[in-house]
């Protein structure tokens, strides 16, 4: 086990509002880390701060450190585009581009450089296979991605994210817009992806966290109340707040 991301005394602000208070946690390589907590508790802010998607918000700034392989994500010499190539992201609502299935997956590789046609074809095929979507779309590569169903669109977004071979994939409630069947297929997929990637997932759904993750962090009002192996956290929560939240008495 090695730490992929180490978060040290990390706080995050929107202007004068402090959204995250002094977080400390280690995200393990090739594990699925779930972040749970009620709406507005800061778990999404935390997730988005890991690949600096919050940068565009005026007044947003971070304090403390978030180290990716020992290097601070917020160091002044970090190239944000490069950082996001290492830390990819999948969003709450499937957001494929209004382009063909193929072009969606090929987007990242094309942005990074000019891949040869044959290589690109293979990369697209591989990515779709790894996202468990290939069988469903192999005859529809030229169709608009918007014609896929939501579950397929979300897996397409995952394929798009892994096509540039990131190291970490952040998922922001990736299943909240999906039906139960599609949700299970995405969870399956996550487990397989964890063999290659480090996954951090924000979820509202505690069963999902319990089912699909190795580690779980519980956020409350911008603080990390408890962080532990998932079976520990759900089986023997140390903090009474965690206990009452996961048992459904609060939140």
């Amino acid at each position, binding site marked *: 086990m090695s730490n992929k991301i180490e978060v040290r005394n990390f706080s995050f602000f929107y202007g004068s509002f402090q959204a995250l208070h002094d977080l400390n946690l280690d995200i393990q390589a090739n594990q699925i880390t779930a972040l749970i907590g009620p709406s507005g508790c800061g778990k999404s802010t935390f997730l988005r701060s890991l690949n600096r*998607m919050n940068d565009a918000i005026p007044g947003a700034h971070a304090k403390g450190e978030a180290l990716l392989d020992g290097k601070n994500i917020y160091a002044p010499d970090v190239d944000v585009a490069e950082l996001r190539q290492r830390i990819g992201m999948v969003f709450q609502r499937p*957001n494929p*581009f209004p382009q063909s299935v193929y072009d969606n997956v090929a987007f990242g590789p094309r*942005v990074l450089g000019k891949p040869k046609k044959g290589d690109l074809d293979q990369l697209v095929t591989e990515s779709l296979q790894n996202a468990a979507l290939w069988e469903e779309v192999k005859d529809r590569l030229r169709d*608009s991605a*918007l014609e896929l169903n939501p579950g397929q669109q979300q897996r397409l*977004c995952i394929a*798009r*994210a892994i096509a540039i071979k990131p190291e970490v994939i952040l998922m922001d409630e990736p299943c909240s817009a999906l039906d139960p069947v599609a949700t299970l297929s995405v969870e399956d997929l996550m487990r397989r992806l964890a063999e290659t990637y480090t996954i951090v997932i924000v979820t509202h759904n505690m069963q999902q966290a319990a089912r699909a993750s190795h580690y779980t962090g519980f956020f409350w009002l911008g603080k990390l109340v408890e962080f532990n192996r998932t079976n520990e956290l759900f089986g023997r929560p140390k903090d009474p707040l965690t206990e009452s939240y996961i048992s459904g008495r609060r939140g």
Partner: protein
Amino acid sequence: MEQTAPFIGSRPAAEQRHWGEWIIEKLIQVAGLSTIVIIGLIFFFLLREGLPAFFEVPLRTLLGGRWYPIENLFGLWPLLVGSLLVTAGAILIAVPLGLITAIYMGEIAPRWQREILKPLIEMLAGIPSIVLGFLGWVVLAPLIQQAGASTGLTAFTGSIILAYMSLPTIISSSEDALSAVPTEYRDGALAIGATQWQTIWRVVVPAARSGIVIAIMLGIGRAIGETMAVLMVTGNAANVPALGLGMFFQPVRTMTATIAAEMGEVANGSVHYHTLFAIGILLFVITFAINSLAGRLVGTQGKRRRSSQL
């Protein structure tokens, strides 16, 4: 309500309402139909006055390169070329400039700049075309002559003026199209590690394509129909310039300018008169073609998008 009306109003009130409805309905109907009728009448009038030209003037003359009404030579070719040259030049200038400005305003400029730019551009749209023509005559034409053209009144001068006339349309419609692109697309591209420019160019602009096409078509529509400013600055020589880049720097005469300049001095019902209306028909056909092309381009896009939103 002073009186309770359990299910429907008392009879007289209901009747009154019914009449009110009827009158409003009819008024709307008349207003709507009158537009159609008037358009029909315009079209009919245009055809009645213009079509005879095609019988009175031999086709070879009409398609010819010489427009000398005094010698009964009514070649439409130089006028068509004049219009196309000026319009093409205007498009070449206005489309990139307009699109880049729209991108800057919609995607890059900070909020406070946008709030200054937007009304300024709308103000540009409000400048009467004759004022722009005047500026072209007084300021632009001398500059172009100094730059080496034999005269400052050229197709290029007209193109610049027309470009600036169509810019507000192109900018504000494109900007609307860009801002209608969902933020999720931008996030998606940024999250893959695309730079801001790559995000704009590879995701946002393609997603806004149909709106941008409409914007450009609207701009072209304005450019090709514009008369007075063009009449002032293009030199009004009805000749076909020799092919090459130099053709932009020679005087030309557009179809619209020809009608405006000559309509006052023709005898009602003469061949010349009919020919001027024939030019009107030609303009009508061109504008109609542009509009339906735009409609088709946008239509297929829209259909595709609708079918995907299940």
